[in-house]
């Protein structure tokens, strides 16, 4: 018993202390995963705030966007043209979802809209496979002028290896979040979005065009999905297996709340880092496969301490 306590409560920290460079390496890798989780969760939150729709398809949108990008490039479209086309595809998707799903189902119970997004998920899987084929593909990282090398950071008496693509991911994610924050905090569209999130009817009565807001948020979520797909695809490869990553957004949302943008970001980082630390320092103890459920454990443990989640009063009240 004493031995077990020692391996759980003492050993990991001794390791962190004695190999600090490795510890920093683990933190960094957790941080990068966390950024990508945060981006996926951010897509969920944007859509949920504006339309109270829990978008099951957010994960598949990541795959679909990445697949379209690689697929177009394979058809001979230059990389940046393909990127531009993918942005347009996400816009078309947003418009189509608004016209064909949200508008006809407006005023239906939330569960119906949730089901509709499950339908959308399978539609996107089918469409992606049909047009571009389902086999795993390699992200066009260097064609998009994203760096592929790595830096070696000599520190703490050792070395930390930083993949340049990971640094790029962090920078792009931060820039995207900053742009979204400015738009949603300062502009008429941002105020309208917050109004719609609060009360649809009232928003309509002051002349906010709900349809426009829906297109805006689905498009924003689509662009976020595209960016996430590129970064994630660059670290593994582009296939439908990627959607499993999207499931990681769920514990992030439990932690951060469905309606909080800062919650999604902080939640993503906490889950990403926590998961990596758990896997490396406690993983051997708990056996393999820990990665698939550790995120939920972290979220639940956190909620025991802070039931209202990271930032807010309302957690999942609307689901």
């Amino acid at each position: 018993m004493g031995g077990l306590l020692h391996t759980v409560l003492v050993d990991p920290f001794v390791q962190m202390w004695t190999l600090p460079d490795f510890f920093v390496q683990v933190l960094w890798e957790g941080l990068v995963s966390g950024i990508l989780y945060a981006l996926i969760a951010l897509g969920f939150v944007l859509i949920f705030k504006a339309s109270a729709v829990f978008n099951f398809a957010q994960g598949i949108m990541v795959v679909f966007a990445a697949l379209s990008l690689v697929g177009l490039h394979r058809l001979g479209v230059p990389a940046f043209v393909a990127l531009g086309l993918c942005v347009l595809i996400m816009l078309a998707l947003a418009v189509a979802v608004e016209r064909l799903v949200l508008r006809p189902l407006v005023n239906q119970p939330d569960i119906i809209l949730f089901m509709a997004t499950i339908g959308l998920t399978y539609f996107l899987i089918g469409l992606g496979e049909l047009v571009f084929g389902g086999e795993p593909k390699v992200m066009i990282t260097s064609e998009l002028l994203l760096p592929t090398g790595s830096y070696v950071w000599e520190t703490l008496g050792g070395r930390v290896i930083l993949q340049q693509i990971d640094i790029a991911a962090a920078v792009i994610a931060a820039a995207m979040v900053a742009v979204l924050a400015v738009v949603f905090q300062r502009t008429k569209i941002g105020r309208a979005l917050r109004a719609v999130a609060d009360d649809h009817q009232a928003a309509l009565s002051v002349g906010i065009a709900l349809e426009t807001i829906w297109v805006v948020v689905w498009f924003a979520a689509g662009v976020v999905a595209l960016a996430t797909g590129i970064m994630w695809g660059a670290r593994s490869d582009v296939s439908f297996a990627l959607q499993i990553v999207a499931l990681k957004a769920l514990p992030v949302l439990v932690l951060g709340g469905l309606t909080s943008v800062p919650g999604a970001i902080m939640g993503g980082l906490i889950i990403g880092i926590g998961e990596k630390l758990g896997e490396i320092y406690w993983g051997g103890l708990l056996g393999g496969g820990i990665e698939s459920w550790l995120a939920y454990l972290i979220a639940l443990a956190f909620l025991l301490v802070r039931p209202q989640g990271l930032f807010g009063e309302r957690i999942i009240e609307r689901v």
Partner: protein
Amino acid sequence: MRQRAIGEVILAVEDVSLRFGGVRAIADVSFDIRAHEIRAIIGPNGAGKSSMLNVINGFYRPQEGRIVWKGQAHRAMRPYLAASTGIARTFQNIALFKGMTVLDNLMSGRTLKMRRGFFWQALRYGPALEEEIAHRRRVEEIIDFLEIEHIRKVPVGRLPYGLQKRVELGRALAMEPELLLLDEPMAGMNLEEKEDMSRYILEVNEQLGTTIALIEHDMSVVMDLSDRIVVLDHGQLLADGPPEVVSRDPAVIEAYLGVAH
């Protein structure tokens, strides 16, 4: 007694019928609203009063009839069209942006009046900033008028019911409407709050010339405020005329006033 020139017909409801499944919420109703008047809509619960306001601002699409608004005939209004052509409203069950402050709620009423592109707003630059300040000034005037300075920065969800009703009126006023639709603005209020609300409604009508359609159950309020009254019952038009005539109408007394006494 009051001095306002009642104008031409500004809105006409023509032969409107609205059904929900088997329920006839509105059955072949016609009436009109004249510029600058206070037009009360009364009737027992379920008479179709709220449905009528919902038809006028486009939340509901009637199966039959049409709405003539400022000379334009519409098969059905649309909320956006209504808001952008000068119709503002409040709701029977308050519909405010609960998470936002009183100030932001009122500012949301300025949505359609903001012209500057969102790029400039994001940068808080030049003309966009000036515009925001001008809107803020207008909203502050309304806040003064409604005597809610002390709660400007409070999230609306934390306010007591009576004050929420007042904020909702403020948001509608921020739209600077020509026609203001008020659905039971005094429901659930105590006497003092009712007197305040009556005063605001009268002042808006007299000083700004705003036309008002008012649903209200308190008969003394209706008799005091309104120029003309429409009486609905089971979706049908029961009577239409000035207060002193409607209040003596035997059908009205039986269907409505009789029940209330």
